[in-house]
C-alpha cells in the first residue's frame, strides 16, 4: 500500500505543471520532474497553461497501447483536447484529424516514403552530404554546424522531394521556426502560418499549370481531380516541408553534440563500415534524444480503462515519447547513450496511425550523415563550452540553436 493519492483525486492546483523544465546540466535528458512522475505511475494528472488537467501517460507500454487505440482522437478542435498553446487558427493538416479522413489524406503522400523509393534517394543524399562537407573543409576550420550542415541537408532533400525551390529556404526556415515555437506570440505564429500557406498555394498553382516529378505535383493532380481542395493541398505541403527539415536538422545537430560529449560512442560510428552498426546507432540516437518533446496530444472519445484507471470520454491525454523512450522496463539503464543496444522499438516517431510518415527518409538521411560526417572530419570538436549553448526549450522540436564546431 502506498499513501499516494489516486491521480483523479488530486486537486488541479496540486497537479504538476506540464511541460516541465529540463535540468541545465543534463541537456539530453527529459525533465527530472517528468522522470519523477514516471516513477510514481503510468498514468498521472498534470496541469496545462490554461488550468486544465489532462492525463499524462508516462510509461512505454501504456503509451503504445493508448496511441494505437481507436477510441482516442487527434482532432484539436474537440472539447477537452489538451492544446499546448492558445488555438491560433493554424492547422497541421492530417496529423490533427481522425480516420477515415486522416487515412484518406495520409495515403496521398505515402508513395515517396516507401523503403524502395527512399533507398533510391540514398546516393543523392550522400552527394548532398559530401558536397556540404567539402564546402566546410574548404573554408576556415570553424563554423556553426547548424547553418553549415544540419539545416541544409534535410532542407535540400525535402525541397527536392516536394518540388520546392531551395532558393526560398530562408523564408520557410524562419517561418517554420516561428510556427512551432510555443513562446512566439499567437499572432506571430498565425502570420507565419498564413505566409507559408500563401507560399505553398502559389507553388501549387505552378505545379497544376506545369506538373513535374515531385510530391507537390502529385497533390496538384489530386486537386485537379477534385479529391482534395487546393487549401488542403497547401496545408499538406506546409506540414511536409516543416516536418521534413526541422526534425532531421535538430537530430543532426543535437546528435552530433551528444556524440562529441560521448567520444567513445562517436568512435564507434567513425570507425565502422558496417551499415547495420550505423542503422543501430541511428535508432539509439533517436531513442536517446527524442527531439519531439511536449508530448503527443489526444482526447478520449469513450471511457477507456487502462492501468487500473478510467480515462473518461472528453478527457485530454498527453503522451510524452521522451519519457517513454527512457522507460527502464523496456530500455535497461535508459539514460545511458549506448549505440550498440537494440533500440529499434523506440517511440521517437510516435506510435499508432499518426506515426511519422517520413520516418524512412529521416532514418536514411541520419544514416548517411552520421556515417559520413565524423569519418570525413575526424577532428571535429565543440568550439565553445557546453554551458554556453542555447537549447530549444520552447518549441515542439528540441535541439540546439547554434552548434559552434572546429576541426
Amino acid at each position, binding site marked *: 500500500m502506498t499513501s499516494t493519492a489516486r491521480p483523479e483525486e488530486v486537486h488541479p492546483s496540486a497537479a504538476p505543471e506540464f511541460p516541465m523544465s529540463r535540468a541545465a546540466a543534463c541537456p539530453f535528458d527529459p525533465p527530472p520532474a517528468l522522470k519523477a512522475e514516471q516513477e510514481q505511475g503510468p498514468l498521472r494528472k498534470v496541469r496545462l497553461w490554461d488550468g486544465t488537467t489532462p492525463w499524462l501517460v508516462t510509461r512505454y507500454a501504456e503509451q503504445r497501447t493508448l496511441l494505437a487505440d481507436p477510441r482516442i482522437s487527434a482532432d484539436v478542435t474537440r472539447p477537452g483536447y489538451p492544446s499546448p498553446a492558445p488555438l491560433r487558427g493554424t492547422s497541421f493538416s492530417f496529423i490533427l484529424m481522425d480516420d477515415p479522413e486522416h487515412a484518406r489524406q495520409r495515403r496521398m503522400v505515402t508513395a515517396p516514403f516507401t523503403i524502395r523509393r527512399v533507398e533510391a534517394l540514398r546516393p543523392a543524399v550522400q552527394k548532398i552530404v559530401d558536397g556540404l562537407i567539402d564546402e566546410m573543409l574548404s573554408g576556415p576550420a570553424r563554423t556553426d554546424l547548424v547553418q553549415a550542415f544540419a539545416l541544409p541537408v534535410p532542407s535540400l532533400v525535402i525541397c527536392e522531394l516536394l518540388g520546392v525551390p531551395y532558393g526560398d529556404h530562408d523564408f520557410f526556415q524562419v517561418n517554420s521556426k516561428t510556427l512551432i515555437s510555443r513562446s512566439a506570440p499567437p499572432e506571430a505564429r498565425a502570420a507565419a502560418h498564413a505566409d507559408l500557406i500563401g507560399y505553398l498555394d502559389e507553388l501549387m498553382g505552378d505545379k497544376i499549370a506545369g506538373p513535374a516529378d515531385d510530391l507537390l505535383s502529385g497533390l496538384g493532380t489530386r486537386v485537379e481531380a477534385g479529391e482534395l481542395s487546393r487549401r488542403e493541398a497547401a496545408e499538406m505541403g506546409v506540414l511536409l516541408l516543416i516536418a521534413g527539415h526541422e526534425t532531421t536538422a535538430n537530430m543532426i545537430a543535437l546528435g552530433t553534440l551528444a556524440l562529441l560529449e560521448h567520444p567513445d560512442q562517436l568512435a564507434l560510428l567513425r570507425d565502422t563500415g558496417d551499415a547495420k552498426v550505423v542503422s543501430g546507432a541511428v535508432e539509439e540516437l533517436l531513442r536517446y534524444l527524442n527531439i519531439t518533446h511536449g508530448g503527443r496530444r489526444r482526447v478520449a472519445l469513450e471511457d477507456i480503462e487502462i492501468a487500473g484507471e478510467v480515462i473518461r470520454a472528453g478527457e485530454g491525454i498527453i503522451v510524452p515519447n521522451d519519457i517513454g523512450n527512457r522507460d527502464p522496463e523496456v530500455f535497461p539503464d535508459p539514460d545511458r547513450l549506448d549505440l550498440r543496444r537494440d533500440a529499434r522499438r523506440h517511440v521517437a516517431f510516435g506510435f*499508432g496511425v499518426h506515426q511519422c510518415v517520413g520516418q524512412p527518409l529521416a532514418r536514411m538521411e541520419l544514416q548517411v550523415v552520421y556515417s559520413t560526417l565524423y569519418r570525413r572530419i575526424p577532428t571535429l570538436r565543440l568550439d565553445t563550452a557546453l554551458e554556453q549553448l542555447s537549447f530549444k526549450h520552447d518549441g515542439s522540436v528540441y535541439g540546439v540553436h547554434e552548434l559552434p564546431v572546429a576541426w
Partner: protein
Amino acid sequence: MKVTLDQDKCVASGQCVVAAADVFDQDDDGIAVLLDPAPPSDRADDVEQAAAVCPALAITVQD
C-alpha cells in the same frame, strides 16, 4: 509460424520491410504486402520485430 497482415489498417510506415524484407514488401503507395504467410522458424525474431514495430498493429504472428 503463421503471419497475417491487415492491409486496411496499414499506415505505410515500412517498418515491417526494414525488419523482415523477405517476408514483407510494400506496394507503390507504401501499403504493406505479405510475401510469405508461413516463414521458416529461423525468421521468427525478425517477424516478431516487424509485428512489434508496426505502428498500426496490422501484423499478427501465431506460433
